[in-house]
């Protein structure tokens, strides 16, 4: 083997090692999703609407109370006979991994503002095995919840013909500490949630 071939082999080995190492450590930068405006040459990204909810312990849940945490937000209601339990089963996977994480919370917003009182939400959370304030089951002003749904990439419509009385979706939306939407998945499908874990990791890496 002459010198040139040795050099070639070394380069190749180096290249493979570098690419493998990079693959293990690289974190993808997540996009900021939604409508954007360009004003005076600056891009203004979509932010989720301001909110002020009350959780199952009676605590306020707002951008201020979340205090720089990223959060996953979904719409649900406790008597939902269709998709909610399946979505909650998937959210439990996320909760189990991040329940003590300092930079991530889960916010489940009830769209049944009449029936889902603080006490009912507390009972539901307890039966789901959630006894930790990193997963907020919240209620709040009905107009705020319905009017803001689209801004959170959600759907919420009262419909007496829908099972349980409401139309909504099972999306899990990942929101960063600056209220930008950075990812989402359909919480009905375990394989989508598998990929969503990568989004969560990529976002949390920004806070390291």
């Amino acid at each position: 083997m002459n010198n040139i071939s040795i050099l070639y082999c070394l380069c190749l080995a180096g290249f493979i090692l570098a690419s493998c190492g990079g693959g293990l450590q690289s974190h993808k930068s997540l996009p900021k999703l939604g409508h954007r405006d360009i004003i005076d040459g600056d891009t203004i990204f979509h932010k989720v609407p301001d909110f002020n909810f009350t959780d199952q312990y009676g605590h306020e849940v707002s951008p201020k109370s979340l205090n720089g945490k990223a959060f996953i937000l979904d719409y649900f209601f406790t008597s939902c006979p269709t998709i909610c339990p399946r979505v909650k089963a998937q959210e439990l996977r996320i909760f189990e991994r991040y329940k003590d994480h300092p930079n991530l919370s889960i916010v489940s917003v009830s769209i049944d503002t009449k029936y889902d009182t603080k006490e009912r939400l507390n009972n539901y959370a307890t039966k789901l095995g959630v006894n930790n304030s990193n997963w907020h089951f919240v209620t709040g002003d009905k107009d705020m919840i319905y009017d803001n749904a689209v801004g959170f990439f959600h759907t919420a419509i009262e419909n007496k013909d829908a099972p349980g009385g409401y139309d909504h979706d099972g999306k899990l939306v990942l929101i960063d500490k600056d209220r930008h939407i950075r990812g989402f998945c359909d919480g009905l499908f375990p394989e989508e949630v598998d990929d969503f874990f990568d989004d969560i990791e990529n976002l949390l890496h920004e806070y390291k």
Partner: protein
Amino acid sequence: MKNSYLIFISMLLITLSCATQEYSQGRELYNYYCSSCHLESGQGLRSLYPPLAKSDYLAKYNETLPCIIRKGLEGQIIVNGKDYDMPMPAMPKISAFEITNIMNYINHNFGNDLPFVKFVDVKAKLEECK
């Protein structure tokens, strides 16, 4: 002679493949009507929704199950020693045929080994619970 072997093997394979697809209609119906709460493998969800897998309640109340499926259930029940009280919604439009298929799927899956149910019995039971 060779052909008859081939036919025999094909028949055997068809029979075997049918055998592994047992209660496939029941599975489809279960996934549509029941799996939202009891989840795909009948495991239930924590203390919210009771399991159907190896459930003592399912075994004990198997005969009244057609009524439970159609009329729903309210109030506290105890399943495998645990309390559950989320209401189960009624499904007034579900047919006796669908219930029979669902029950046979549940009774013979998720680790359950409960009796096979017949359409005529389910239909008769449904008339009783009206």
